[in-house]
């Protein structure tokens, strides 16, 4: 039985979640060494980005935690944060400067994390659990834009590779590794995935994604395999149809930035090798034609451009039926903007509220959001729940409690 959180509880938790995104949390190294990452707790795997405020390699780090009410919070490690997690009498607590806030429950490790693909690759390095139903796969842990000096300014994928690839055994994935890992995850209850990653040389992503789809179908035996493909805008828009034909049920093309001048400056690679901002818009419009409303996502790194510009983009895109998702800009280590800081909690809070209103106005349902997004238990999921718009597999649980 599960009880939907009230709007007040949700907004209080959202604010704290935003604080933890902005300020991070410190955890003593001795405590981290004690945590059982082998069998019990879900660790951070840096398959794509290091989203902490520093490059910490002394021990593993927990990926997330929940409070007693089941609200999920991120672990953004920052040794200088005003927030901390401590251990007392065998329990873990979140604290701020004033004292203890609540007991925390670290995320649990799925069983497939300790399995290996047939070639011996640890499945934990292939797909990371986004929650209890969705896994995320970064097929490549580098981005070819780097060679051209065209990295997105907020991105640290290449720096993350330098810091963590050898340490954690992260490498490019083969379609077979991916399919076997998805099978293992699905066998324990997961049922959807997103495949994403940095740009690969010569933009061969479509062939790779089709190979992955075929392998997943072969190994899971599922025609509708719950896959979402995250791609860069193709120069030839007919490519979009191929993803649909391959069996993906949703597609994502992340614009990151709305304003045309800021787009060119912050994501120069996406501008220069993907046909410019106008081609990203053409792509999203074509994706809606092929996949349908609520089956196309575009994530934005919010907090770099003025909020009014981001919301202008969200209005346009959600009206088309695109699930425009605001992600928190984390000026993370190794990115060109390292040392910068994201806006205040109040800034983000306002953006989240206005975005959610746009979802409702444009009939983007909770299920649309889930199918398009590469995450679970986000603040938007909690907002949908509080409005009674439950995901089908959750509805029964809530129905008992409501």
């Amino acid at each position: 039985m599960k009880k939907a959180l009230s709007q007040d509880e949700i907004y209080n938790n959202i604010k704290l979640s935003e604080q933890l995104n902005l300020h991070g949390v410190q955890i003593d190294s001795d405590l981290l060494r004690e945590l059982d990452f082998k069998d019990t707790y879900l660790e951070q795997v840096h398959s794509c980005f290091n989203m902490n405020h520093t490059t910490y390699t002394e021990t593993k780090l927990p990926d997330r935690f929940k409070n007693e009410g089941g609200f999920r919070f991120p672990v953004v490690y920052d040794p200088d944060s005003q927030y901390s997690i401590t251990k007392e009498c065998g329990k873990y607590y979140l604290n701020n400067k004033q004292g203890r806030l609540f007991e925390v429950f670290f995320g649990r490790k799925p069983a497939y994390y300790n399995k290996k693909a047939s070639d011996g690759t640890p499945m934990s390095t292939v797909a990371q659990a986004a929650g209890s139903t969705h896994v995320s796969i970064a097929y490549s842990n580098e981005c070819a834009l780097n060679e051209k000096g065209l990295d997105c300014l907020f991105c640290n994928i290449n720096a993350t590779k330098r810091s963590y690839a050898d340490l954690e055994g992260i490498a490019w994935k083969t379609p077979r590794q991916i399919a076997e890992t998805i099978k293992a995850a699905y066998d324990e209850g997961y049922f959807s995935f997103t495949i994403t990653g940095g740009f690969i040389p010569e933009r061969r992503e479509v062939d790779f994604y089709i190979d992955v789809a075929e392998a997943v179908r072969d190994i899971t035996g599922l025609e509708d395999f719950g896959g979402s493909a995250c791609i860069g805008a193709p120069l030839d828009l007919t490519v979009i149809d191929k993803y649909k034909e391959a069996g993906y049920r949703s597609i994502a093309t992340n614009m990151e930035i709305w304003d045309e001048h800021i787009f060119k400056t912050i994501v120069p690679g996406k501008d220069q090798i993907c046909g410019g901002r106008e081609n990203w818009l053409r792509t999203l419009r074509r994706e809606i034609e092929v996949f349908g409303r609520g089956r196309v996502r575009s994530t934005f790194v919010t907090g770099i451009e003025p909020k009014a510009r981001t919301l202008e983009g969200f209005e346009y895109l959600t009206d088309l039926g695109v699930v425009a998702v605001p992600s928190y800009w984390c000026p993370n280590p190794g990115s060109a903007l390292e040392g910068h800081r994201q806006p205040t909690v109040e800034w983000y809070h306002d953006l989240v509220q206005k975005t959610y209103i746009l979802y409702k106005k444009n009939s983007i349902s909770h299920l649309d959001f889930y199918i398009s997004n590469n995450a679970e238990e986000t603040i938007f999921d909690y907002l949908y729940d509080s409005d009674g718009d439950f995901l089908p597999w959750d509805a029964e649980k809530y129905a008992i409690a409501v």
Partner: protein
Amino acid sequence: MATLKEKLYDELKLKLALSVEGVNYEHGIFDSVLEEDPMLKKFDYCTWDKQLVTTKQYSVPSSIVLEHGFDVGVVVDRDSPYKIEKASDKDFVVTRNGQLLSNISFLPSPKFYSKMTSDGTPMRVVGSSLSGLSPDKSVIFGYSTECAVKDNDETCLFCVMNGTKGLDAPETRPPWKTSAQISETAKAAYDEGYSHLTITGGFIPERREVEYYLDVAESIQLALGVEDFNGQACIGAPMDLSVIDRYKEAGFSSIGLNTEVWRKEYFDIVCPGKVRMCGGYDNWIKALEHAVKVFGRGKVRSCFVAGLQPKDVLFEGLEYLASIGVITIASSWVPGIGSPLEGHRSPTVDWHWDVQLRHANLLRKNGFTYKEIFDATPGRGFAHEIYQIEDETLPIFSAIQDEG
């Protein structure tokens, strides 16, 4: 034991931290200070107050002075770990999370703050001292309280000038200062030891600034009875670059053209009004290059808002301009309320500190002297302080020698 230089650098970094992180305080703690010195400057632009805590009350002095003499403009932020507290009836301190960092005092008001111009305008609202406790004194005149780019919704993204959100200034300021008000105030300031002035302000509709600046220069020359009044005109790049020559002819000894951000793509984003009204980025850079030809090396300045672009791009600009003879300013971005970037946050203190140290070093490497920096900038910045720490020319060095 820390040397004096080390202590000064620590305190200078604290000055930076207080600007970037803001400072908290309990309402009313400044009442006695403000009563004691009614001429003490309070917030000039209340829009720097991130949390509107001084709305309509303005019970906060505009700056404080740290133990070793560095003055800091007060940016109020209720969430800041820094706090101004009362240590006793008369003594104030600044703390971080309860830990004492520095005793503080308040800047004595210059004498001209108590005087009036001939039309009855308080001189304190006409000109502002930007010298802190330094004996090298400069005064700045903002001739207008608005910027014409507002009309086309083209305010620079970092700027609070057009976005007071209905808040009043702490004191009524004339929306437009006359040349007489400025020259009379300049005379009063120079009579008490000020030796440099800057005229600046928002864009005037139809770009009639040159005529205005020439009137002001003439009026100041008459009031002071000198041709060379060590004045700087801060302007937008003119479409016709020969206009720059007229400022020189009028008697200004230096000129300022604030680029704000480097590279065209950033300029287009951050300064849409300057793009439209000033011939775009390329013309802005050409204007700086032309200004160096007219005024000479070290007689042209350009201010950058540090924190709006990656550091390597910022330094690309600082290095180029310094190499051609422009004295640059790396002003730390404080995202004030009412600006299009309200709610954003400036980079970390460490990021800004690195900028200030590298920037001062860059100016030195390019051969600029302390005197040139003083003459080419409107008020004391980090470059002034770092130069004087390194050269051991801050008054505190001689004071200690005297004690010794």
